[in-house]
Structures are given as C-alpha cells and as structure tokens.
C-alpha cells in the first residue's frame, strides 16, 4: 500500500508541479491583483477596492456582457437548429454521407484567424461578395460590420458557420445512438415524421443539447480574434467582447490589476451561467 502510494505520487508529480505553478498560484495571484494597481512595469500598489468600484461603474464592462448575451441569443438557437437539420439529413442518407460530414466539419479545424480574414472580405460593405450577391438580386446592401446593430449578429452568424459542423457531428453521434426500434414502433403507430422528430429525436438528444449549449456559452465568452481582427470592438463598442476588453485594459492601457478584476468577475459569470444552464436543461 505504501509502495503504491509512492508510485502514484511519483507519476503524478509532473501534474502537481504544473498545477501549482500554472493553476494554483495564478489563482491566488489573481485575487491579489484585484486589490492592486499595476502597470506590469513597476511594483504593484495596494488600492483596496478601487478596482471593484471602478468595475461597478464601468459602462464598457456591462456593455461587453450585453454583447456576449446578444451573441449567445443568436448563436445558440441558430446553431442548434442548423446542426439538428444537418444531422438528421446526414443520418438519413448513406451515399456521400462521409463527404458531406467532412465538408461541414472543415471550418471547425481551421484557425479562427483564417475564417475571420476571409469573412472580413465577404462582409465588406462596398464590394464584399455577400453584398454583391444581394445587389445582384435587387436587394439593398447590408452594413454587416459597420452598423452598430448588425455587427454582433454578423459575428454570431460567422461563428455559427465556423462551429456548426462540430455540433452536427455531435448530434449525428447522438442520433446514431437512438435504437431504430423506437422509430419502427412509432411508424407502426402511424406517427408522422414531425411527430417522431419532436417526440423521439429531440428528447433523446437532450444530453447532447445540454453539451452544445454549454460549449457555445463558453465559446461565446471566449470571443477574441473575431472582434480583434474585424472590428476592434466597435462600432460603438457593439462587438467589444469580454476577452477583448480584458486584453485592451491589460495590454493597451497597462492596467493589469483592473484587467485581473475583470477576468475574475467574468469567470464567475461564466461559471454561474453554465451552472444555471445545467440545472435548467437537465431538469427539462
């Protein structure tokens, strides 16, 4: 028993050392920084609750949360809706299924930088492909990234395009786990396709649904490259994401203490959001 204890500890040492240095210590240090002003160059100075007071009155802090919520409200339903359709569609065919699945999944593996650069051009107001298509069919152009009310929805749309493949394959795996007998029995009872979909497919995909919602939420709060490259957080701060705001405060303005306080509060919000989602979705 004692020997195995030593072996277990020895094998775990790399992780323990790693976790102490790169998880536990930063965790405590983040709390320390909340109460300090620090530009990263000089020594930190104690300022009590000034960072917190500032945060409570910081319009941009609230704005960045609202932006993330807007992103999620568009991104999550759209993603689930499309991924479900794709998954059901792919599940019902045999020929070329692997090909379609691979194509839909492609944006998932590609760097967000690539996706962002390409979509920045697709979204271009004056000569972007999307607006060219719209004017071709006689519709007015859309100010995708330059209109304050459209910018975040545009980013959410792009994020859906990038990630829907992942959720499609997750749903597809879920669908393949549903026994065929369920559908056969329902068909004998004379159930329509829609009824089968709503009564069998959707409930049995529940756990996958929860997963998709939680992954999308975490993803939404991690938004960075997209606004960083496409909009710089504008117009009118409409695409200022929480991580971009932390980045700006820390590395543009040199307020590491305040940025750390922001990070702390955002982390708490994310944890709460995920907890609430778990509760709600799992009891349903």
């Amino acid at each position, binding site marked *: 028993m004692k020997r195995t204890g030593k072996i277990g500890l020895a*094998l*775990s040492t790399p992780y323990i050392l790693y976790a102490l240095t790169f998880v536990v210590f930063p965790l405590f240090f983040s709390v320390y920084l909340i109460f300090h002003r620090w530009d990263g160059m000089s020594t930190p100075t104690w300022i009590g609750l000034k960072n917190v007071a500032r945060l409570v009155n910081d319009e941009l802090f609230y704005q960045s949360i609202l932006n993330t919520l807007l992103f999620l409200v568009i991104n999550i339903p759209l993603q689930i809706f499309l991924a479900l359709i794709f998954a059901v569609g792919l599940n019902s065919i045999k020929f070329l299924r692997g090909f379609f699945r691979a194509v839909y999944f492609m944006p998932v593996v590609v*760097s967000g930088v690539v996706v962002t650069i390409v979509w920045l*051009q697709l979204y271009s107001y004056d000569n972007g492909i999307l607006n060219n298509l719209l004017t071709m069919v006689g519709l007015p152009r859309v100010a995708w990234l330059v209109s304050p009310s459209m910018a975040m929805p545009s980013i959410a749309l792009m994020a859906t395009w990038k990630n829907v493949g992942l959720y499609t394959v997750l749903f597809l795996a879920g669908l393949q786990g549903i026994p065929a007998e369920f559908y056969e029995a329902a068909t004998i009872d004379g159930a329509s396709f829609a009824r089968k979909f709503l009564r069998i497919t959707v409930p049995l995909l529940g756990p996958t649904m929860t997963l998709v919602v939680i992954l999308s939420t975490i993803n939404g709060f991690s938004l960075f490259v997209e606004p960083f490259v496409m909009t710089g957080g504008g117009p009118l701060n409409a695409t200022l994401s929480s991580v971009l705001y932390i980045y700006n405060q820390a590395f543009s303005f040199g307020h590491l203490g305040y940025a750390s306080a922001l990070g702390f509060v955002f982390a708490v919000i994310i944890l709460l959001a995920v907890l609430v989602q778990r509760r709600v979705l799992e009891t349903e």
Partner: protein
Amino acid sequence: MKKTLSAVLKYFFLTAFAVGFLYPFLWMLSGSFKPDFDVMKLGLFSSHFTLFNYDLVFGRIPILRAFLNSLIVAMSVTATVIVFGSMVGYALAKIKWKGAGTLTVFLLFTMTLPFQLTLIPLYTMVVKFGITDNLLGLILPNMLTAVSVIMFRQFFVTIPDSLIEAARIDGCGELRVIFNVVVPLSKPAVVTVGIITFLTSWNDVLWPLIVIRNRYLMTLPQLITVFVLGGQAESHLGAELAASVLLAVPILVIYSFFQRYFIQSFVSSGVKG
C-alpha cells in the same frame, strides 16, 4: 416516386450547404492568386493569374520561421501532454493510493475554471520566469491539461488489470508498463488527445499575442494576424488571402487525409469533456 423525390431534395439541400461551407475556402485560395482588382469578384477563375501575393508575403514577413515556430510549439505541447498526461492518467486509473480521489476531484475542479480567470496572472508568471519572447513561454503553461489526464484515465480504466499484472511479473517497471503496454493499447485515446492538443495549440492566437513580441518568434496565426492588422500588407487584399492560405493549408491537408480521426476525436472529447 415520392421516395426518390425526397432523396433528390435531400441531396440538393445538403449540396447547397456544402457549397456554402466550401466556397469561402475556394474563394480564398483563388483570390490569393489574383491581382487585387479581381479578388472581390464572385468567380473563382481569373485571367490574370499571379504569384505577386505570395511574393509579397514571403518578402515581408518571416513566414517559414513562423511555420517552424508553430510546429515546434504544437509538437512539444502535444508530446508533453501525451507523455505526462498518460502518466498521471495511469496513476489515477490503475494505482490504488490515497491521493488519487483528491487529485481527480481537483482535476475536475480546474476543468471548470474559465481561462479568463488566470490569463493575467499567468502572463505575470511568464514575465517572472523571463520567458516572454521565448517559445518556452508558449510551451510550459500548456504542457499539461486536465482534460487530457481525465481522458486517459477514462480509457485506462477499461484496460484489464491482468495485462498490467502480467507485465509487472515480467519485471517491467511502472514507466515501462505505461509506455510499452498501456499506451499502445490506448491508441484511440492517444489519437484523440493528440489531435485536440495539436489543433488547439496550432490555432491559438491570444496567448502568443500576449507572450511573443519578437516577429521571429511569432507563431503562424499570430504573425498573420499582426501582418493583416499592422498594415504590412499595405491593404493588398490578395496578400492577406495568401497569408491565410498558408495558415490554413497545412491543417487542411492533414485533415483531408485523416478527417475520420479528427471528427471522432472531437466527438469523443466533446462527449467526455
């Protein structure tokens, strides 16, 4: 009759979306070979084929160096995550010791921590260690992940104890048991952890932007972000697209050969994580 009609509709619909997913990539690829005035056109073919954009990219930024940096970082991180992750996973799955339960709980706890929490403190650590502007600054903080340990643990639990006992009787030490018996039996877990870790590292931009300032040490996605934002592309659209192509192609080539493994990895890591 009704059946064929619905099949045709289904394929039409799936193909339409497939075009929606493929077209932007094809447009990027073709745009990178077009002169600027042709880039914004819908068609994929231009009568003015040019390599100017690639010339510009290779002339302006050390892109090969960045490719190498990305490769060094992603490979090192993947290697350490697999080696150390499987060691710890084994200790938790196959060795009965007092700390195992606590450690597992701790691992699950750290998995719930959003990275926003430790981003700034982690940066200050890297500064303290003097590894800003150093690839170690990208490797060390990512050399292990809680998810990988848990995934290895889950998989190792399914390996029969008798195999491990047999190896021990043959005189294998624990490390040899892990790397000669357990890990070879766990290819799916290794592939999953390997692919996810490699991709995460390869595609990361935020952390390199924070840690690396020297352009010769930048990773590929970072260098390209800086290239596009920093104005070195001098608004040459084609050059921006050429840079994106260079960033996307390595992963897409690997993906086209091993897409099955990629997808499987994401599914299993998603479901388990």
